[in-house]
């Protein structure tokens, strides 16, 4: 019963937010391209959005939705590779720096991460471009390379050129996010590793790897999910910067192009799609939170 109420209240809130965003995007549309809203009032626009029609781009003369969907695989693959890279590095490093905070290596990792936090994503990108593309001429600096269609999905992860192209943007984005997540995870783990349950586990002589896994990481999971959910906007913004730096043909680049070309309908469509994406990510974060939260788990079984 409570679950149903919770889901319903959530759906209603989400619908309200999308309507609100649609109203804002109508206003934006009028600001950028006044001609577009001349013979389209707000109610008509909302109905149009509700029926899934996000209008047509002024520049491309194509449906906005289709344009964004075409750009989505590029962004998605970039984010996917980046998250894989980040989690592969962050979890072991975070554990290590939290378990042995006094260790020399751990201290130097933290010092480097503090420097990393102060490195803007576009600077790392620039330096990478200078070394790997200009000086060494190893890797391409813009575009996605050759892509292979899987159904309607254009994937760059199946070709050598695709991998070559994704390397620099993904590495840049990971380097920007790494120190941020490392510091967040380490702070959380450090607190967990000094908590009473860990002390009891140590007093009971539980094997260190069990303590790290079942007491350290397990108890840091919930805060980590919250933390990752809260960083979604930052991830989105950084991706946008990296995409425009490497001219990666993703959603972010498309948006910046639409801005530079004053393509009102495309900007307005972006707003609505960003809102939908934002709501679904927070729904996923919430679902994951509920899945790992014994308080809620116990309450469900009741």
């Amino acid at each position, binding site marked *: 019963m409570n679950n149903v109420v*919770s889901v319903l*209240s959530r759906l209603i*809130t989400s619908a309200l937010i999308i309507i609100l965003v649609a109203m804002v995007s109508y206003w934006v549309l009028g600001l950028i391209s006044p001609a577009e809203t001349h013979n389209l009032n707000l109610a008509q626009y909302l109905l149009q959005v509700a029926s899934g029609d996000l209008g047509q781009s002024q520049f491309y003369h194509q449906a906005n939705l289709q344009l964004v969907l075409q750009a989505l695989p590029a962004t998605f693959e970039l984010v996917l590779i980046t998250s894989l890279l980040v989690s592969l590095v962050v979890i072991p490093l975070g554990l290590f720096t939290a378990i042995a905070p006094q260790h020399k290596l751990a201290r130097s990792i933290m010092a480097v991460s503090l420097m990393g936090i102060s490195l803007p994503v576009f600077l790392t990108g620039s330096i990478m471009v200078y070394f790997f593309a200009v000086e060494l001429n190893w890797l391409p600096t813009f575009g996605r390379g050759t892509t292979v269609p899987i159904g309607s999905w254009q994937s760059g992860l199946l070709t050598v050129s695709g991998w070559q192209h994704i390397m620099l943007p993904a590495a840049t984005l990971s380097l920007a996010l790494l120190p941020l997540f490392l510091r967040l995870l380490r702070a959380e783990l450090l607190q967990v590793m000094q908590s009473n349950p860990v002390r009891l586990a140590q007093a009971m002589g539980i094997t260190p790897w069990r303590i790290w896994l079942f007491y350290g990481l397990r108890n840091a999971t919930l805060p980590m999910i919250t933390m990752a959910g809260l960083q979604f906007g930052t991830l989105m913004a950084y991706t946008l910067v990296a995409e425009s730096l490497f001219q990666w043909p993703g959603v972010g680049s498309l948006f910046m192009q639409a801005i530079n070309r004053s393509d009102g309908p495309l900007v307005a469509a972006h707003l609505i799609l960003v809102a939908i994406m934002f709501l679904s990510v927070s729904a996923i974060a919430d679902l994951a939170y509920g899945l790992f*939260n014994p308080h*809620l788990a116990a*309450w469900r079984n009741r």
Partner: protein
Amino acid sequence: MTQTLLSINNLYKSHAAPNHNSAWWNLRKTSYISAINGLDISVKRGETLCVVGESGCGKSTLARLVMGLEKPDAGTISYQGEIISGLSDKARMPYRRRMQMVFQDPYTALNPRHTVLHALVDPLLYHQPNLHRQHAVDQAMAQLLAVGIEPALAQRFPHQLSGGQRQRVNIARALMVEPEFIVADEPLSALDVSIQAQILNLLAQLQSQQQLTYLIFSHNLAAVEHMADRVAVMYDGQVCEIASREQLFSQPQHPYTKALLAASPQIYTPPNKHHRLVGDVPNRIPLRHVQHGCSLQDRCPQAFETCRHQTPQLTPLTAQHAVACHHTQPPVSQGNSHDSEH
């Protein structure tokens, strides 16, 4: 001696239960847990009434309700015949000077940024801006001396004092406004064993010097036996037994009182195993599932059928002794048990 100073009638209070899912979209209503459950009690001028009970029985809530830090859901608290439970902050001001409180944790009861002297002088100057500062400082120094704090410590910050010293400062602060009634919520429990005796003596000495009335909440039966005139035993937000000290400790009637007395460690007599309760203090349950009957029914080894249906009423056995238990009184025939219906 017989004038009633404070009387509490049929008091109810519930708190919001913690809500675990607090994401930004979740606007669900909170559930409530009852803390005080139809409580009656009165304090006579000049006496020391000790309220005994375990953690979670509603002691702290009662203390806060008496001091007006929370408002009751139902029922009244009156002071010298005037109802003070629903007063606004402004209307309550005259009573603030007459009633003061000593807190449980001497570590958090003092503002860490104020020196001892500042903590004592500031309330005086706040209420009487025209008071000469030197006069206020003199008063504070005299009060510190009265509670046994050396003048040299007046400029110290709380973290530079020991637990016993802080509790003395707390008592001094409460006495600065010259109250006649002191509520103390577990004044000893955060203190070391050798310091407890010092504070007990100080409380007794101040009471005889300044004709104070005490309402003291405690779980330390040994200390209660030492200082109380009357003792009330609290369980699950209700008084289950109230009697003079001699009667309560020599002839306890309620099974819960017996269990408490048996469980209290005595240095020379081994613990008594006959009056054990079974099971555990129940987890607090939201108000929706109101339990019928005596709240001790699941733990009481003598519970019988009536206990499952009727809430026992506090019934006087003698003039000094009242008990709420079906074993000491005939069951009430017209089931007017007041299960909370709000």
